[in-house]
């Protein structure tokens, strides 16, 4: 195995991990702070991508479209919180799962009616289309580097928000003890709305970033939501730090598994057997990791200290 290929695959893993973190951070915030299971989180990922794709064709610039689509997606998140989620906080998780599953169908069908079944492809600006040549064998698509950059800044921004601002302090207080925070005069309803909208915007951003690589399409949330749940379970539900580290871990393992597992298997079995078994095993790999983590740390790698 040569070094250039390995570095490239690590960067690919980093990119996947960052996208996973953007989706998982919102999920873990909502789950950790409000104790609310939101299966429809993936629909917000899809809605964000769809809005951004449509806006791209109106303003003729992908980057401006992101700037416009982010608050719109947050608005959708806010509406979901205000009209659906808020009524369900006092109910048990099963009711929430049922309601948010219904929400997936509602949002999916609405998107089908608005945008039709075909996905939307988004053109990239000229300067993002090329490649960056780091060495003769190390050539990276520019846009992938942009995703890594955007993902890292979003993660950094979130870290700052949660740890160094008043809002972040309230969020942490709400996560530790909702009743106590409320008794101290924190407007919990408002806080929940903000957190939900923030989670929606982050998921939407992930959807927007992936769109020029794949496309904005109806089922796009399916592929990421299950992995995002794996991330928050491995990381410890409600923990930002856990979500970040678990997202990186899962992103790396998934990418490196896809990249190198067949070569690794070929060391001790026939090439044909390796080629047949590697795809199956690499698809299972993240779940195997989850099972191992849960066997040793049932609350995940970094469970929040106070629950």
């Amino acid at each position: 195995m040569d070094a250039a290929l390995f570095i490239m695959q690590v960067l690919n893993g980093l990119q996947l991990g960052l996208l996973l973190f953007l989706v998982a951070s919102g999920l873990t915030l909502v789950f950790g702070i409000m104790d609310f299971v939101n299966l429809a989180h993936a629909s917000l990922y899809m809605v964000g991508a769809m809005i951004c794709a449509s806006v791209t064709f109106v303003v003729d610039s992908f980057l401006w479209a992101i700037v416009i689509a982010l608050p719109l997606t947050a608005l959708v998140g806010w509406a979901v919180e205000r009209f659906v989620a808020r009524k369900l906080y006092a109910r048990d998780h099963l009711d929430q799962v049922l309601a948010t599953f219904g929400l997936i169908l509602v949002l999916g069908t609405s998107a089908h009616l608005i945008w039709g079944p075909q996905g939307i492809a988004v053109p990239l600006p000229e300067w993002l289309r090329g490649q960056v040549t780091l060495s003769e064998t190390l050539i990276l698509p520019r846009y992938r580097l942009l995703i890594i950059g955007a993902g890292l800044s979003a993660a950094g921004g979130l870290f700052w928000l949660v740890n160094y601002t008043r809002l972040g302090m309230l969020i942490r207080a709400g996560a530790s003890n909702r009743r106590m925070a409320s008794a101290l005069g924190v407007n919990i309803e408002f806080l929940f709305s903000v957190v939900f909208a923030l989670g929606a915007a982050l998921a939407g951003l992930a959807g927007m970033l992936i769109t020029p690589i794949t496309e904005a399409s109806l089922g796009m949330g399916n592929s990421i939501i299950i992995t995002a749940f794996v991330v928050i379970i491995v990381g410890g539900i409600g923990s930002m730090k856990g979500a970040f580290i678990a997202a990186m871990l899962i992103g790396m393992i998934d990418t490196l598994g896809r990249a190198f597992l067949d070569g690794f298997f070929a060391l001790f079995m026939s090439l044909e057997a390796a080629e047949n078994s590697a795809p199956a095993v690499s698809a299972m790999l993240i779940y195997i990791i989850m099972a191992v983590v849960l066997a040793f740390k049932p609350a995940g790698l970094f469970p929040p200290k106070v629950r």
Partner: protein
Amino acid sequence: MKYRLLSVAAAAAMAMGHVHAAGVKIGFVTTLTTGGAVIGKDMENAVNLAMEHLGGKAGNVPLEVVFADDGFKPEVGKQSTDRLVKQDNVDFVAGYIWSHVLLASRKSVLDADKFLISANAGPSPMAGKLCHPNFFSTSWQNDQTPMALGEVLNQKGVKSVYIMAPNYAAGKDMVAGVERTFKGKVLGKDLTKWGADAQLDFSAELAKARDSGAEALFVFYPGAAAGAFAKQYHQAGLTKSLPLYSVFTIDAISLPKLQDAKFESVLGSRTTQEWDPSLDNAANKRFVSDFKKKYGHYPSYYGAQSYDAIMLIASAVKATGGNMADKDAVRKALKSANYDSVRGKYTYGNNNFPIQNFYLREVVKDSDGVWTTKVVDTVYRNHQDSYAAECEMK
């Protein structure tokens, strides 16, 4: 009183049942939700156009089509098929984009002694050991199109390829097909996750393909995955160093999106297929121009094969006067393929798969600047699939 009401209702139901029996019902299973719906929509449109061209009738027997969704999943496809067979009591079940869905659903139709017409999927077992007198295809056996592409690679003098395909029944058939005819070396192979949560980010695989040192890249990514794959292939800057040869990937489904996203380098790329909008026959001209008029874009081969499926069924219904009880007569009529297929005349082999031509087609701009394909060469004439010998039917 109650009994009288019941018996009236029963009589009414029987009368209605009688009216129904005069017509012929066709169930059509395709993907109407998830990312696969882009293909399903094209098929649905083509079926509706076929019904319009037929005036809703075969001879003077009224036809009715009932659509059902497979949700891109074998188990959902089987449920939909069961419902069509048992509740809707259809006479034919047609459609099926995906090989794994067709394989899961076939028994529901065939065990009920109904007719099954695949408008796309052509899994190898159903051409070989699982062939059945009530099953017909209006498409191809999966291996054939990539086999034709393998020949194209040989003609071009390509010595080595890297292969990428989704990990499901058809993906494996496609790989087997190209490996059967391609004479050079296969330097690497990736089978990626497929289904409603399919893998659409191919960064790891493309990096491996570049690193393999292969002369060309062979892929099979149908439907929504095609656009995603093509974009990443271009973004990775592989167009010059690793030329792309694909089947069922660069087509009327993905081209409009690639044009929207301005991937100019896809122009000129070549694929193999049994049908093309530029094929010169009366049925095809009518199909393509009316389809474009009605839906505003080119039909895909999925649409063409679905149109043919309805026309094939209509020809058999017409030939038997709508008498579905005489199964032998229906089978005989289907087997004769006595209708104007949009791909031109073809015949059925012993396994009820078409013996037909395969063309090399190139991506071009039409006179309106719309990206489409045209035929540049004929790779195979009257080609029969490789599994026909394994089929026990004579």
